[in-house]
């Protein structure tokens, strides 16, 4: 095997992503198979219409068997009950419900739908406390998914 699995898979994903990206998603920076930066635009007709966000994906050598590290970066972190102000995202598929069949595109879609179904723009109730104590890698947080509806 010339290329390791994650590289083979990511190169294919990148090709797909460039050819037909999901609505509102564009590639900002994907020059290696370690860190990708993607742009995510708030969908029309939702609370986030017109807003632009930046997502950072960190892939480990065990990708796609292990989930990538995904967080919002940049100046504009969406104000959402499941997104902490340090960019950490409380979404089960990124942590214990990860499956190797998930892709960067499918994560973007999940996030897009999470944003779109939001009814009131607010931070999670424990935001202040969480960002003080959280580690840099959100995968080290023991997530309790209190809300399955969004």
């Amino acid at each position: 095997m010339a290329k390791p699995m994650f590289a083979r898979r990511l190169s294919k994903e990148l090709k797909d992503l460039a050819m037909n990206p999901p609505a509102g998603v564009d590639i900002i920076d994907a020059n290696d198979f370690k860190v990708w930066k993607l742009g995510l635009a708030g969908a029309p007709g939702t609370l986030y219409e017109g807003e632009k966000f930046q997502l950072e994906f960190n892939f480990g050598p065990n990708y796609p068997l292990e989930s990538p590290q995904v967080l919002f970066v940049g100046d504009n972190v969406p104000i959402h009950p499941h997104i902490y102000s340090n960019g950490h995202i409380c979404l089960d598929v990124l942590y214990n419900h990860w499956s190797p069949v998930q892709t960067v595109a499918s994560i973007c879609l999940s996030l897009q739908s999470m944003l779109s179904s939001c009814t009131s723009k607010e931070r999670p109730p424990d935001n202040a406390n969480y960002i003080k104590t959280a580690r840099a890698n959100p995968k080290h947080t023991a997530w309790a998914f209190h809300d399955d509806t969004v």
Partner: protein
Amino acid sequence: MSAGTISEDEFEGSSDYDENDFEDDDEDESDTEFGQTGDMGFQDMITEKQRKKAYEVDFSVLPLADIMAAQTSAASHVSGILGVSLQQATALLRSFKWNKERLVERYMDHSQEILNQAGIVLDDVHTPVLKRPRGFVCMICFDDSSAGPALGLRCGHVFCQPCYEQYLTQKIVEEGECRRILCPESGCNTIVDEETIKKAVQPTVIAKYQQLQDRAYVADLDNLRWCPAPNCENAIDCRLPHSSFKTVVPTVLCACGYKFCFGCGLGDHQPAACGLVKMWQKKCADDSETANWISAHTKECGKCLSTIEKNGGCNHMTCRKCKYEFCWVCMGPWSEHGTSWYNCNRFEETSSTDARDQQAKSRASLERYLHYYNRFANHEHSAKLDRDLYTKTEKKMEEMQRTSDLSWIEVQFLKKAVDVLTSCRMTLRWTYAFAFYLARNNMTDLFEDNQRDLEVAVEALSELLEKPIEREKIAELRQQVLDKTVYVGSRREVVLEDTAKGLAEGRWEFFVDFSK
């Protein structure tokens, strides 16, 4: 007299004999009576012999092979009843935490639901495919070449074999998962069955998988616990309900020689119950390291009781926390000090006496704790030294064989003495944790008497063992050590019997609730 003359070992046979005797002499009034009393005396003898000590529990040691055999035998039993294969029965049992009765009962009513839950398909039609279907793209590696094996469960999600293998290896080796490994497809709840796993992964991973299954088996059953000794592969089977561990200290002895508590897995901690041990250890972890230093170097704020260290400056203290101003020397409020800032001569004032009283009270509780902790720690430390004594003892024993006409077997008394000594120290150690939480009443005095007797005996034996060996006095020493060893052992039994009985009877009063 029939009963009295029969040896204890053959009581089964003898009871028949007794009965015959009884029948034969049926007519004779006096003999019948005699037979009855003899019978009762005999009964007493059995109970006396068979009664285990109050501080002992019933248990058995299961080597790994037995654990595996137990799984197989349970599975074959169930497979016979339900008409499924051995492997399917094992999977079903696992999903029911090895509760045979519940499985069989529920299976009779909702077999399909239970099969789905355990990830089992009975018919062979859907066995995993091992070749790639036409137009196949593996959704993990996105490989679309048509060569090479692929694998898919009955849910129809097919992935290439290398990806499947990596996925399963990751789950088993990295994540230690063995109970519910699901199909890699997102949101698919189909369980990867054992057969597929064994087909897909390397033998080393299968071995790991088997090990995880054995671990899960022991973890699933309340009456099993692994021996925590390193490299020991035995489990202990103890059928006491876990709720009884409030009043029983279930010390068990593994075949490897390690003695531990079945309730919590820590080393033997008789006579203290598990809940008490947990509290004590937490307290020690929190307090003991710093407690000594705090006691020696600090005082407490007279108002908010924060601990304060004075590391320079004058006697005018201002508590950082509550801003209370006081004098370091007399602990009274600073406001009453006027201008005599550097000399405190106000020792007799009532307000400062009050402040000191309060301080003394909190120090007293600390000192009480330290009293028990120091003794607890001391015995732990001495037990370690006793273990060093072991090596010294060995030398001593060799020396004895050389210098005297004692044979190998005759010098074993030293080794035995050290063994008894170590176990007594372990017991003594925990009596202090036990005593710390004991509320004071008449029973406490009794307990403390027993504790003291054991302690005195232990120290005497310890001293005796440290003595240098003099050639002419060996016989005398041997006798002394033997006597002391027996005595110490019996003192330990007294303490354990009394505390265990007290726990069972609810005789001890603790000022804490450790029942959770």
